[in-house]
């Protein structure tokens, strides 16, 4: 044995130190680190560092301008429960999420079900349904402001034509949030359709045929066979749309700036307002961490509850 590897046993001890270095530089370790370093540094500076800094900031008082950021302990967090506007913002965010998420899912599912068939020109219909994915929140907000314009808007014209009362929409504290729900549902329709249509196409046709032979009517087949098999897509959409709903900002900033009378002030808008308009960055950081926790908890609950009814193939 020893005689079989004489060169290795002789050469190894003296060369050990340089060997380690040299071995490292040409090794998978070195190549691996060389490959990951650029991306890691960037993510560390712009992703990781801000997360930690934000936590620190939430225990400080900062106006983003002056370099002094005095430590204030838990003051920022203690301030949250007594903040009436923040409580309003939470309320609005919950109302918005509870309306927006199911509405988008139902609209998406219905359209996807209608599009899941072989009809001439179906790809044109599908493209039309997907197209809202290409529309940015800004385009969407400007269009819907015009549709819901109180004096000259199409929506009021249609209501007028039908003999129904017209609305003040985005100018009305009682209606503005619902207009924002409508515009965001429209904006997310393409996304929901893509998800549900892909899931529908993954349901084997034989299962629906077997159910038909078993005597189930089309709606029963959808309810008992197709929809349960879509549950992974349903869970994904519920989680994904909720996360996005809790972070609603663009449309509010563009249409109402949280008004009228704070009626559309949602959490992230309030957070933005505190940080970059009121210059209470420390307090905003604390709010952000609370939001983060809420999102984590809600997502966790959704997965726990969801996993009870979700059927994963294989």
């Amino acid at each position, binding site marked *: 044995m020893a005689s079989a590897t004489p060169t290795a046993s002789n050469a190894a001890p003296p060369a050990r130190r340089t060997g380690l270095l040299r071995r490292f530089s040409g090794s998978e370790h070195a190549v*691996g680190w060389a*490959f990951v370093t650029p991306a890691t540094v960037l*993510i560390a500076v712009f992703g990781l560092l801000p997360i930690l*800094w934000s936590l620190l900031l939430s225990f400080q008082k900062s106006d983003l301008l002056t370099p002094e950021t005095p430590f204030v302990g838990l003051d920022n967090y203690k301030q949250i429960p007594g903040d009436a506007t923040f409580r309003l913002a939470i309320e609005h965010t919950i109302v918005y999420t509870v309306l927006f998420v199911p509405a988008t899912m139902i609209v998406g599912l219905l359209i996807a079900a209608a599009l899941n068939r072989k009809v001439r020109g179906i790809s044109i*219909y599908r493209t039309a349904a997907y197209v809202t994915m290409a529309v940015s929140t*800004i385009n969407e907000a400007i269009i819907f402001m015009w549709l819901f314009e109180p004096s000259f808007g199409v929506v009021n014209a249609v209501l007028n034509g039908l003999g129904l009362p017209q609305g003040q929409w985005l100018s009305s504290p009682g209606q503005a949030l619902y207009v924002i729900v409508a515009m965001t549902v429209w904006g997310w329709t393409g996304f929901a359709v893509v998800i549900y249509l892909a899931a529908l196409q993954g349901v084997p046709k034989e299962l629906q045929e077997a159910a038909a032979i078993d005597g189930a009517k089309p709606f029963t087949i959808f309810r008992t066979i197709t929809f349960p098999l879509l549950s992974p897509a349903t869970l994904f959409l519920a989680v994904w749309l909720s996360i996005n709903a809790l972070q609603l900002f663009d449309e509010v900033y*563009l249409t109402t700036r949280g008004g009228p009378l704070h009626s559309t002030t949602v959490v992230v808008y309030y957070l933005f307002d505190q940080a970059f308009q009121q210059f209470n960055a420390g307090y905003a950081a604390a709010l952000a961490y609370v939001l983060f926790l809420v999102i984590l908890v809600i997502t966790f609950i959704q997965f726990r509850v969801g996993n009870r009814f979700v059927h994963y193939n294989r």
Partner: protein
Amino acid sequence: MTTSTTATAPAEPRFRFTRPSPWHLVLIPLTFILLVPLIWMVITSLETEAETRQFPPVLLPASPQWTNYPDALSAAPFLRFMLNSAVVALVVVVANLVLCSLAGYAFARLRFLGRGALFAVLMATLMVPFQVTMIPEFLIVKWVGLNVWDQLGIDHLGALIAPNLATAFGIFLLRQFFLTIPVELEEAARIDGTSRLGVLFKIVLPLSLPAMATLAALTFLDSWNSFLWPLIVINTESNMTLPLGLTTFQGSHATHWELLMAGNVFSLLPMLLVFFAAQRYFVRSVAATGLKG
């Protein structure tokens, strides 16, 4: 009798009229309702100011006001906004493709010290919403602009680019795809004397075009539509991206709906073109993240 019928059988008409499916009666109105907002945007963009101020609204403009478009373009530097958006999006997409494939490959195939821990930390950042990081990010960008290179600082395009050059999501997406490529292909190339970098570029990436296209499509969409971050860091009009520029345009022309809609159509156009050209990739990437996520 049977012989005579079979003899005449080929005489039946070749071109048969197939009745259109009744589903069109559902699909056409449905599509129309979905598209009404976009159709109405285009119609309004061709009306006169007087026509926009009629109730009930004018359904078709008396004569299309094509001049609304040059008017809108001269009222705000839309071409500049578009150029800024394109520069930012392209740099970000290319950087993500390069940096994330390097890192994703290392995490998928190379055994290096600390791989597991580093990957876990990077993935953890994915869970944190942007609102948590945006305030310190603002401070970091400000500091970099003052101390490293002003082009990366507040109110420069660099501030929109630098934080998005590499994403943990991109690394994750590509790593997952690389793991599905048979390792034997890479081993064969390595036995033939190809370096790791060579394996990545000559073997792995050519096989990963669908995943690369997915990452490119999602990154592009994200960058192009990004609003909150540009709103925080950009103040000067000439450095604004489309969403931000459109917002300031809206602020100064709030009642000129025909100009607003013309600007809106114009700003929507590039993304629509990209979307139609690459619809396959957008749809596939969204569906893929949805079904795997």
